[in-house]
Each structure stands twice: as structure tokens, then as C-alpha cells.
């Protein structure tokens, strides 16, 4: 019984907007399965009472490397020049970025 079904891999590919051929789906199924199995091993450890770690450094206390509540003053800095900002853009129309048609309003 594989950890991941082929259908699950297809769904993940859709969410990641990746087109995978049949042989690639198969490879991903086994490779992602191995990774998932590893998390299964970790999940088996009893972590009762230990808060989830969301940052690479301890976030519970301000310390030498972490200062909680760091905020930025609302002072504008110069924006990137348009040509600089769009330098990596494959296609542009004037100062607009051109992408393949997307459907309006599909996001929140």
C-alpha cells in the first residue's frame, strides 16, 4: 500500500500548477512517499506538551538573536524603477506584466 495514491499526487500537482506526465507521476508517487514516510517516523514520537515549532529560533523569549515585536516605521523608501522591477518578466505591455489569461475573481 503506497503512502500516497496516484490521485493525491495529481491533486498536489494541480495545486502547484505542475503538469506531470504519467511516468513522472509514478516517480513522484514513490519519491514523495519516501519523504512522507519519514514524517511518519517523526510523527510517531510522543510530543505531548511541546508547542509546535514554527521558527528556526526560539520565539518564546526575546534573546540575543531574537527580538519580539520588531516593527517598521511607516516611512516610504524609493520603489524599484519600473524597468528594474520588470527585468525578469518574460512579457510586458508598456509597464504592465503580461501573463496567460487567468479567470477573474477566483481568489479570495
Amino acid at each position, binding site marked *: 500500500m503506497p503512502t500516497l495514491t496516484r490521485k493525491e499526487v495529481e491533486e498536489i500537482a494541480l495545486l502547484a500548477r505542475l503538469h506531470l506526465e504519467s511516468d513522472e507521476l509514478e516517480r513522484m508517487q514513490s519519491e514523495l512517499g519516501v519523504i512522507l514516510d519519514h514524517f511518519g517516523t517523526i510523527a510517531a514520537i510522543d510530543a505531548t506538551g511541546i508547542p509546535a515549532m514554527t521558527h528556526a529560533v526560539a520565539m518564546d523569549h526575546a534573546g540575543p538573536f531574537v527580538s519580539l515585536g520588531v516593527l*517598521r516605521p511607516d516611512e516610504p523608501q524609493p520603489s524599484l524603477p519600473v524597468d528594474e522591477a520588470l527585468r525578469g518578466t518574460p512579457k510586458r505591455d508598456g509597464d504592465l506584466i503580461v501573463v496567460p489569461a487567468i479567470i477573474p475573481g477566483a481568489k479570495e
Partner: protein
Amino acid sequence: MSRSVPQMLEDWEPVIGLEVHVQLATRTKAFSPSAVHFGEPPNSLTDPLVLGMPGTLPVFNKLALELALKLGVATSSKIRARSRFARKQYFYPDLPKGYQISQYDEPLCEHGHLDVLVGTTVKRVRLTRIHLEEDAGKNTHVGAVSHVDLNRAGVPLVEVVSEPELSSAEEAAEFMRSLHRLVRWLEISEADMEKGQLRCDANVSVRLRGEDRLGQRTELKNINSFRFVQNAVEHEIARQLRIVDDGGRIERETRLWDADAGQSAPMRSKEEANDYRYFPDPDLPPLVVDGSTMGTILHALPELPLPRFERYQTAGIARDDARTLISDRAMADYFDAACLAHPAGHAGHGGRTIANWMLTELLGALNTDGKDIRESPMAAETLSALVVLVEDGTISGKIGKEIFAESYKTGEAPLAIIDRRDVRQISDEPALWEIIDNVVKASPKQAEAYAAGKDGLFGFFVGAVMKATNSRANPVMTTDLLKKRLGR
């Protein structure tokens, strides 16, 4: 033959919840220092973070936090001392990072409420949460391609989520109006709906009256005006009623409101293939609100619109006038300043008379000039002084309107205009008696006819007295003395 909407509403109850996005009035973006402006050339307000460049790190805007806290406090929300930013994954080119920074299971504010003026009552609507997030850029669809402008990407927003407690399209629109008024009152957003600074999604369902459980809901997106909220929700309620009243079932779906067509259409299910996979943003530390920040926010909080509405009514201001006065904080502040300059203050005659003059004469003149109350050429104290001059009988109400017009136009003090134009009301009894005596003597025939019962002639004498005094005769005294002089 299906039943009419009012008939169906006897059995079915609509339930509406709103999610309103409000753009916070900051000068820079939520997580980077690029400027925020409307109407700048496309893609001129970006920086490496907005563009999703590797190696960039977000740092949150202090002012955005303070503005959101104001709203939290004004809605009596529970404020989290430590809230958290989360990543919401989605794949659209309007957010190049591939995710939106938002808040998920640890939002800044929860369990607040918004008081909404609906008709003649105040309805308290509970708020599930108010959380911080960043806006996306703007996509424009042009045939086979889409154009992307990232100027708006990263602009700080609060999302205000109500409990499903609104029960009509009108209530939904009033909720939006109340929130719009509140955020402008608190000066946390310009909330210009034409610029998309306040926009909402509506969750609509219907259930049999008396039922506790909510019906299947649909989500309406893309609503950016008070009128559209009302129309879109009304339309959706009617659509759902027709289905359930015929024994059908509502499909859970997201529908897009098309304001031009006046109807909504479902989005295809594939467009909804979203799986946001929220997780705490590892690039951002928890958002900490300390006691001194809260103290500053609480200290600076102004008196809110609804308490002011109640206060005005207690002082004897008519409900509709009170509602107009709180429509804008500058208006309410002007009114309060005028009352403060009046010897009677807000109470009794003072407040009512000032409200009358302000809402008819002043707003009328400002309207004609296309001006806002903030740009009023007449100071609140001047209006108050003019009202006092009418109240104490120095001038008549009719002359008062002329003095108002001149003072509004030239800025000259009302009393100076009155003296220059010599329009003080004649309220001195012997003086007025003498004038009336002369007027009656000059028209013996009419006096005789009146005495014989021709009542219509009384107006003739009033007119003659006004003409003789240049409209300065005290009208009440003129009536009394004329009756005395004419014998009835």
C-alpha cells in the same frame, strides 16, 4: 406557479454574514517600505519583497498595527497580546510570492461587535474576527492574456468577519455603511469604495423560520458599493428562496456578482480548486501588542458615532437630524463646537436650533458650492452667534437667513452685518405701536372693512407694517399689537 418573495419570506429566514476588506491608511506597504498610492503608473510601486525575490524578508508596518488596533478597540474586540501571521498559498500572478501573508488561527482581534443603525433601531452584530493581511495586485483581463499591475500588492488590509446574524439585504447594506462610517471616523481608512478601499464578500443562506441550523450557503464575491451589497444579497436571497420553496437544494458554491448585468453567476468548480494550506509564516515573529501600545490606542480613541447619536437624541435632537450629524465625524465635531459656543449648550432649544440652521442653511450652502463641512467658510462659533441673535430677538428668522448668506459669503461677523444694514428687529412696544398706528390711519377704508368682518385684510396690514419697517418689525408683537389696534 411559484410564490412571491414576500410570501416565501413568511416561511423562510435569510441569514447573511459579511467579510469586509478595509485598506488601512498607511503610507507604505504592510511588510515592505514601498509607497502606497492610488493611480500611479503600473508597477511603479514595487520592491524586491513585493516581487517575491529570494532572500527578502518581511517586516511589519507599525502604523498598520496601530490602525487595526483602533478598530479592534472601537468594536470591543478581544485583542490578542500575541497574534501570528500565516501564509495562505495561492497561485495567481497578482501575488508573486505564491502566497498571501494573512492571519489564520491566531488573529489580532476576536469576539467584537459592530452596532448597526437599521431603520429606527440599533442592531448589535457580533464580529467573529478582525485580522491583518496584505492585498494582492490587480489583474486586468484582455482577451487571451491578463495584465498585472503590482502597485496594490502588499498594501495592508484588515478583514472584518461578521457572524451570520444579518437577516436582510437592507441589514447587510447598513452593516457596510456603519463599518464605512466607523473606519472613517477612526481615521484608519479613507474607505473610498471607488478605489476599492472597502469591499466585501457576502455569505448567504436561507432556513425555515424557527430552525437553529444554518442552511447551505453560497458566497458572493466582488461587491464594492453599498448599492451592490443590497442588490446582490437581495438577488441571491430570491434565487435561493425559489429553489428551496420548490423543494430543491442549494449547492455550496461561490458566485460572482456582475453589477452591470444585475445578477450573479457561479464560478466554475475548477476555479475554486483552492487548498490554501495555511501555516505560520516562519519569516515573521509573533505580532506582540504590549500594554503601553494599548494604552496609547485607548487614550486616543474618540467618542464613537453611535454613543454620539444617543447623546444627541437625549439632548432633544430629532432622530433624523442626529443621524445626519453622525454621518461624518467632522460634521459632528462642527455641531459640538457650535453648541459649545451657545449659552444653552446642546440642551433644549440650543442644540435643536443649531442643528436646524446647520442642516438646512449651512449644508445647503455647502452643497451648492460642492464643499465638504471641513471646508466650511463659516466657523462653528459664527453660526452659533447668528443663532443666538435670532433666538434673543435681535433679528427675525427671515433676516437671519439673509445675514447667514452674507456672512457665509464674505466672512463678516453677523453682528457687524446687522449693524451696517440696520436690520435689528423692532421689539420695542411703544415704537412698534406708533408705526402700527400710522399704518392703520393711512388705510381707513381697509380698517373699517376689517372691523366689519373681512378677515383676509389682516395680512394686508401685516404686509404694510413690514414694508414700513423694512421687515424689521417683530412678527409676533406685530400680530398682537395689530389686533389690539384694529379692535379684534
